[in-house]
Every structure is written in structure tokens, then in C-alpha cells.
């Protein structure tokens, strides 16, 4: 056999191996994409209904004599709006007379409906004395039923919503008094025990403040540590030891960082519990090793010829690093920061330990207000028994994913900007 024949004989096998290898790669990517699509589809199909909320239209006559003569805000806020709603319900269903049934009837409206009514009246006092159709929040059980998540063929004792209530809702629907409207409170309110009033805004703000603290601490500290270790630290046993420990820290379970934060920041330093400041500090500790490791790799990848060029011109080591090496390494450093922050954004375990799992209704106004974070909110809702929280859990996951995309997008933009400069 000539040499050409030997090579030819082996060619088919070599190409087959190459094709096989490519197929492995392709199939793993397809597999990963399939899981991603599955995740997005299930989350989306469960969660999109949370964007709409069932409202019931009630003709309410706000009797002028019930408000008295005083039209000040204080007086308006004290009126018995719940009474008006009950009265309207009684008039819509005059056949309901028994005390027990009346109570059930009142429960088709949300506990928050009276506050909605109050807000409308306070915004426009001229409504007093007139009979107007108000669209107010329905109870979460009704909402779940209207959205078709409760099967009316299930025996009555096996479902939360009773036949009599279903009858009322059906009659309201026939009259065109049941409507699904955009769920504004979900995007503007904090947490609530009542699913129909619970919103994601409080947790989103908590996450934003937490991430701000994390980014402001972890990025400068991580980058500075990486620069020192990579460029200036003497190469000896101590730096070797440090390097090994930093690598190990990246693998420490996040809840340990939570315990560390509890022991140091809260118990030793006396910082308040449940606040984004402490949450951000804990997550910064968790993110630091990731940022340091990737920043060191980015610094190490800057060609030595650039360093030599600057040193040869008489730049001091610090000038060399700051003028040339760091700008060139910046895209790599930002990539590490993306990975670290994405990890931190989805982290809930350390936040549980430092008390950011508390039930907090108010939207936090700063990093020192008690708050919760998106992943913790998802955990809390997924743990709640009410059916209506199921869709909200999925919707919160979508918000978290959007937040993640936004944070990543921001850093990718930054990275692009640095890449463009060269």
C-alpha cells in the first residue's frame, strides 16, 4: 500500500469520528434548549393569567347622608365603604336573606375592594350622591374559578368554592358584570395575605437594593483584589495559600455565607435584620470569589507585550496596569461580574438566614428598610396554600427572569462599550 492509500483508508473513519463528535455537541445543545423551552412554556402558561385579575362590576349608590357634611379627606377616608359594597351586593341578589348566606355573598368581593372604592371617592368626591357602576376586585377564590382553574364537576365538598357562590358568579357573568382586567396591583403593591392584593413590587425593589449593594461592594473589591494578586503580590507561599482559599470559597454553599452574615453583620456589628444592606453584603461575600477568579484570568490573558511596551516607555507598574492592562481585561472582568451577580440575584438561602424571609407588606424605600427579595418571594408564595398564589409564583418567576435579563443586558452593554474603545 502506498502512503496515499494508507491515508485514504483512514479518512472515512476520521470523518465519521468528526461527525459523531459534532452530533454529540449538537444534541447536548438541543437538549439544553428543550429544557429551557419547557421551563419557559410551563412558567409562562402558569403565570400569564396573573397579569389579569377578575373584577366585578357593582352598581353602588353612595348616599350623601352617609358622608355627612364634612368633605375633608379625613372624613372621606373614614366612611363605611364596606357597607356600601354589602348593600350593593344585597340589592343585586335580593333573594339572599339568611345570615350565613349573606356572609358567603359578601365574600365574593375582595377584602381590598373597600379600599379601591375609598380611593376612587377620595380622588373624585363628586361621586357622592350618585349611583355608578364600580369595577372592584373579586375574591381570589372567585378569580381562580373564573380563570377556569376550578372544575365545577368536582363534588362540592372537594372544592373551595361552593355551589351557591358559583351560582352568584354565573349570574353576574350573564349580566356582563364579571370582567378580567389588567392586574395593576401585582406590579405596584407589596406582599399580602390576600392573593388578589399581593404584588411583586416590594420584592423587586428589595432585589434592586440588594443587587445595588452587592454590585457596589463586590465589583470594586473583587477587581482590586484580583489586580493586586495578579499584578503586584509577591509570588510566595502566602499568595499560593490565598489563591487556593479563594478557589475553595467559590465552592462554599451559599447558606454558609448567610450564617456568616448573621454572625458578623447582624450579631457582631449590630446591623438591622431583614434589610437589603445586609443581604447585599452577604451576597457580595458570596460573589467575590467568582469575580476575583474570572478577573485574574482576564488580567492574565492580557498579552505581556502590552505590559512591556508600557514599562519600556517608562510607565510605573501601577500606570502600566491602570492605563493598559485593566482596560484590556475589563470585558473579561465584566463577564465574571455577570456570572457572579446572576448567581446572587437568584440566591435565596443566605437571605433566609438573615431574615429577609419576613412577611413585609410595605414597599422598601431604601437599603435600610426591611424587605424581601424576588427569589425569597417566590419561595414564600410557592409555600402558600391559596390556589391563586400558584399563578403568582409563576408570574414572579417571569419577573425574576426579566430582571436577570435586564441586569445581564446592562453589563453586556458596558462590556461592548469597552470592547469598542480598542
Amino acid at each position, binding site marked *: 500500500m502506498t502512503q496515499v492509500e494508507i491515508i485514504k483508508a483512514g479518512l472515512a473513519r476520521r470523518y465519521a469520528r468528526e461527525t459523531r463528535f459534532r452530533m454529540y455537541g449538537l444534541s447536548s445543545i438541543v437538549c439544553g434548549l428543550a429544557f429551557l423551552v419547557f421551563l419557559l412554556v410551563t412558567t409562562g402558561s402558569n403565570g400569564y393569567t396573573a397579569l389579569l385579575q377578575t373584577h366585578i362590576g357593582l352598581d353602588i349608590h353612595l348616599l350623601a347622608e352617609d358622608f355627612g357634611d364634612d368633605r375633608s379627606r379625613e372624613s372621606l377616608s373614614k366612611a363605611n365603604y364596606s357597607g356600601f359594597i354589602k348593600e350593593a351586593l344585597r340589592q343585586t341578589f335580593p333573594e339572599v336573606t339568611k345570615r350565613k348566606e349573606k356572609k358567603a355573598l359578601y365574600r365574593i368581593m375582595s377584602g381590598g375592594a373597600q379600599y379601591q372604592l375609598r380611593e376612587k371617592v377620595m380622588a373624585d368626591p363628586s361621586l357622592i350622591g350618585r349611583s355608578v357602576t364600580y369595577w372592584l376586585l373579586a375574591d381570589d377564590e372567585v378569580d381562580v374559578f373564573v380563570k377556569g382553574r376550578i372544575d365545577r364537576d368536582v363534588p362540592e365538598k372537594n372544592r373551595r368554592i361552593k355551589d351557591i357562590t358559583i351560582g352568584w358568579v354565573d349570574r353576574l357573568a350573564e349580566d356582563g358584570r364579571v370582567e378580567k382586567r389588567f392586574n395593576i396591583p401585582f406590579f405596584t403593591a407589596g406582599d399580602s395575605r390576600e392573593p388578589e392584593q399581593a404584588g411583586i413590587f416590594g420584592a423587586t425593589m428589595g432585589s434592586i437594593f440588594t443587587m445595588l449593594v452587592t454590585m457596589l461592594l463586590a465589583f470594586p473589591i473583587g477587581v482590586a483584589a484580583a489586580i493586586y494578586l495578579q499584578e503586584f503580590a509577591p509570588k510566595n507561599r502566602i499568595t499560593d495559600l490565598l489563591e487556593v482559599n479563594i478557589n475553595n470559597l467559590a465552592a462554599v454553599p451559599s447558606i454558609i455565607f448567610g450564617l456568616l452574615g448573621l454572625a458578623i453583620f447582624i450579631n457582631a456589628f449590630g446591623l438591622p435584620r431583614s434589610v437589603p444592606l445586609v443581604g447585599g453584603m452577604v451576597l457580595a461575600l458570596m460573589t467575590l470569589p467568582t469575580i476575583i477568579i474570572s478577573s485574574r484570568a482576564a488580567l492574565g490573558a492580557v498579552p505581556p507585550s*502590552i505590559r512591556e511596551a508600557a514599562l*519600556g*516607555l*517608562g510607565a510605573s507598574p501601577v500606570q502600566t496596569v491602570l492605563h493598559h492592562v485593566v482596560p484590556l481585561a475589563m470585558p473579561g472582568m465584566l463577564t465574571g461580574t455577570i456570572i457572579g451577580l446572576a448567581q446572587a440575584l437568584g440566591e435565596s438561602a443566605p437571605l433566609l438566614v438573615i431574615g429577609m424571609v419576613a412577611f413585609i407588606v410595605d414597599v422598601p424605600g431604601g437599603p435600610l428598610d426591611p424587605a424581601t427579595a424576588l427569589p425569597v418571594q417566590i419561595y414564600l408564595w410557592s409555600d402558600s396554600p391559596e390556589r391563586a398564589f400558584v399563578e403568582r409564583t409563576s408570574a414572579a418567576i417571569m419577573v425574576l427572569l426579566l430582571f436577570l435579563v435586564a441586569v445581564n443586558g446592562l453589563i453586556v452593554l458596558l462590556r461592548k462599550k469597552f470592547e469598542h474603545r480598542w
Partner: protein
Amino acid sequence: MNTLTDRITEDMSAPLDERQAAVAPNFDDPVLNPDFKTFGNVHVDDPAMTSRNVNVSYGDKQAIFNVSLDVGKNEVIAMIGPSGCGKSTFLRCLNRMNDTIDVCRVSGSIKLYGEDIYGKDMDVVLLRARVGIVFQKPNPFPKSLYENVAYGVKLHGLASSKSELDDIVESSLRKADLWKEVSDRLDKPGTGLSGGQQQRLCIARAIAISPEIILMDEPCSALDPIATAAIEELIDELRKQYSICIVTHSMQQAARVSQRTAYFHLGRLVEVGATDTVFTNPRHRLTEGYITGRFG
């Protein structure tokens, strides 16, 4: 008067080779003879830089043995020799670029106009401003052409105004024979130039801060003959103002651009002399072997 070489040179009556061979068969072997002395005159009158008994080692491995060499004013001195002979290492000692290598140790004395560059009083930043360097591979900063040339000037605060800086950039690019090609695109990145242009940009960058000596480490090894010719012309031009040490693998280049030539072999400086003499009438058999192409 006890060393081999001393005894060899003691009695001046017999022919040199005979005297040497009579005393020690290895007299001219720079590696086997521990007392080997460089052939030719390492001294010049009125030197810019003087090196005496320089030894350099990387960790356990010694790279330079006992090298003494002067660099004269307004001269081009070429350092030639086979790969790994230590010529680049020696060059990098002259402005302490070897400081960046942790395991590198330098002993002996290197003086710039009488000042010890490894002494306590010498500031390495100032030294590198006075002794510039151009590397083998063109390494422009990934910034604009203007920034590349202006960087060193701004770094040392050598220009008091923007217009002065502009002038320095222009004159440096003119000296490096690059101005005509790039004057209309000074804001474009330096990395976008061709290899030869990049190397001339690096030279412009080095001369922008007006050093007293320019070290060139195989500046043409990655360039085509046309770019090489341009740079050689430039070196000849620059000699009027600066002293230049050039390391090169090309003996033709050494013969073309330099006034003196130093031949290195396995970390030893074997022979130094006027370029004409070294190339036409080498005194050491290793030098002769190298320049006639028998090895290297």
C-alpha cells in the same frame, strides 16, 4: 599573573596562536576556559553606557557570563549570535526590562554616563525614559495612533500644551518615516496598521520621549524586505541623535547598519570590534564560523 590568559599574553614575542596553544589547548574556548577574555577592544572613548563583568541568571540557569561592553555615543552597535546566546537578555539588562522577571538576577556594573543603573539612586522610570526600547514583535497599544505616540510624552509631562504635544507627535512620526502614510488617520487604532508600519509606530513612540539610547531587539525579524529597508534607513538617520544597540539575527543587517559588532556565544561575549573588521577579518574561530554560516 596566574590565570591562563595572563600567562598566554605575558610573552609577546611568539605569534599569538602559538603562545596560546602552548599554554592551554582551550584558551579560546569561551565555555571551557573559565578565564576567557573577549577578543577585541570592548572599550570606546567617551562611552554612553559601560558594562563591566555582567552576569545574569534566571533562577539556577546562568544566561550571561562576565560580559563587559561599552556603547559609544552616536554609534550603532549590533549584537549578533546564534539563538539562545544571551544577546537579547543582555540588551534587556541595559534598561532593566529584566526587572519584570521575578527569578532574574543581575550582577556586575552597568553605568549610564557614569551612573550605576542598578544603584540605589537610579529610578527605573527615569532610566527607561532615558534608555528606550523597541521590541521584536511590534506591540502598539490598542489605542489610536496619536495616543500611541503621545502616551510616553504625557506620562512624563514633557509637553506643556496640546499644540506642543501635537508637534512632538508629528515630528516623531516624521522621524520614523510614518507621517506621510498616517497623517490623515491619527485617530485610527494603531493595531490596524501593517506589520512594518506598526514597528515604525513603535519606534516613533520610543523616540517621542527623546531617549539618549535606543535598544532594539530584532526590530525587523517579522518584517518584509521593504519594511526592513525603511527601518534600516531610519536607524541610520537616528544615529545622528541617539546611540542605538540593535540585536539582530541577520548578519547582512548588522553589516549594513552598525559601526561596531559584538558576537555572543552561549552567554559569553566572544568578540567585539569595528563592523568591517569583524565581518572581513574575524579574530575568533567561533565568530568566523558564525559569519561564514558554518553554524548558528
